[in-house]
């Protein structure tokens, strides 16, 4: 049974890595439609990755080895994180390997290296992007941790696996604290993935950039890996949200048909939420950078309220 489990673990890893550009393509289609444009095909991100992998890499003369290593490190971090989250099956061998605090640590490891690499070349926009990214993330991270602590205290465990199975064991039950935590998580998801109230992923204006400004100096396969890792990050946040707030359909490896059903449900959730993300981005405007602390402060406040509610109401 353990061999089957490891195979399933590998399957999830491959599924995550291959599905991530597709999710980006799906969000892109909806964004194009909402701009009254004809959308590119769903496979457009694969085309872009394919093209980038076939292009030359141009590296600035001032770049250090750190600059070359970062894309691989970033992709490695995101790939590892993708295998730690219960997307379809809850009892995978690696699901219990780390808890949510280590998970947040893995995500911030990737971010720190990207920020260092952005400052490495010494261009003005690179350091500007790195500073802004750190500003956003040091405010987003506590909010994310508070969300996790709320759910951890509901299930008396910081392990993702027990968080998910804890909810499943109790059946359908509405938690007031989870409503607050859910909104806070959504706000953090938008901020951490460079989505519209905080950052615009499609911008050409260097002065408003956050994430894009950090990767201006990358080209060829390095850029491909960074974009792929970025897509993976969005998928990771989505599956984290599904595992914690919409865990219905998640199954364990004992049931063959259950896995297929869970997979279909997972894809269905991604389809709906991907379109929802594009709609949310279309109807909201990008904030000034100095409004971001207020925005993320609100997320943190909601997360704190969630944990207070849990202790006050005991639910």
């Amino acid at each position: 049974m353990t061999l089957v489990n490891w195979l399933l673990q590998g399957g999830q890893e491959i599924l995550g890595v291959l599905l991530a550009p597709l999710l980006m393509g799906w969000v892109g289609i909806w964004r194009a439609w909402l701009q009254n444009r004809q959308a590119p095909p769903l496979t457009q991100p694969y085309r872009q990755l394919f093209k980038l992998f076939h292009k030359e890499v141009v590296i600035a003369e001032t770049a250090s080895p750190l600059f070359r290593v970062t894309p691989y490190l970033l992709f490695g971090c995101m790939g590892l994180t993708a295998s730690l989250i219960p997307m379809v099956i809850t009892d995978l061998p690696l699901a219990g390997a780390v808890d949510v605090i280590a998970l947040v640590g893995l995500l911030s490891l990737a971010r720190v290296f990207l920020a260092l690499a952005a400052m490495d070349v010494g261009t003005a926009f690179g350091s500007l992007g790195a500073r802004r990214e750190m500003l956003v993330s040091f405010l987003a991270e506590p909010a994310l941790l508070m969300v996790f602590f709320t759910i951890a205290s509901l299930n008396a465990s910081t392990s993702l696996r027990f968080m998910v199975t804890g909810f499943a064991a109790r059946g359908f039950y509405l938690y007031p604290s989870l409503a607050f935590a859910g909104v806070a998580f959504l706000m953090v998801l938008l901020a951490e993935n460079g989505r519209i109230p905080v950052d615009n992923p499609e911008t050409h204006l260097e002065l408003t950039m956050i994430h894009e400004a950090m990767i201006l100096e990358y080209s060829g396969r390095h850029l491909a890996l960074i974009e792929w890792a970025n897509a993976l990050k969005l998928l990771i946040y989505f599956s984290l949200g599904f595992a914690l707030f919409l865990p219905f359909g998640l199954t364990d490896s004992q049931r063959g048909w259950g896995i297929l059903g869970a997979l279909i449900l997972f894809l269905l959730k991604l389809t709906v939420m991907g379109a929802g993300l594009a709609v949310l981005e279309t109807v909201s405007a990008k904030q000034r950078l100095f409004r971001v602390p207020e925005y993320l402060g609100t997320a943190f406040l909601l997360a704190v309220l969630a944990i207070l509610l849990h202790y006050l109401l005991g639910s």
Partner: protein
Amino acid sequence: MANILNEILRHGVRSEPFSWPQADLETWQQALWQRFGRALVIRHVDAGSCNGCELEIHALNAPQYNLTGLGLHFSASPRHADLLLVTGPVSRHMEEALRRTYAALPEPRWVVAVGDCGRDGGVFGKSYACLGGVSQVIPVDVVVAGCPPTPLQLLAGIWRAVTSAKGSTLPRPE
């Protein structure tokens, strides 16, 4: 919020189909277009233009011209780009910047000179302040003449560049 969505729904998809000049298109050129053209990233450099061409390039970004649907987009960095779109007669101040931008463009790369100024300096000609055309500074693949050229002419120029002879130095797609 509801107003925005209502407005979007009322207009529907506004993109119009663009028919590529298919007549002289050989198979491998088509493959080249499939590989690079359908995920083409464009970097625009203003080398002393009067902004007439910029307005047309801006118009090219409108939903009607279907740039997104064709898989083309503009980027903020030459290192992300495949194609350099240069406008203006190249003033001396922009000469070095243009050279550096070209150097930052990873191979395979294409350069499209836009407008009569980009071709030979146009009304500005060649003078003490002006180098008179993009080809004086960097190799140019395609010139899109016009003062300013229309968005469709620009799109046709981009297509001509990507399927041009210089592309044959690439590994031939099977």
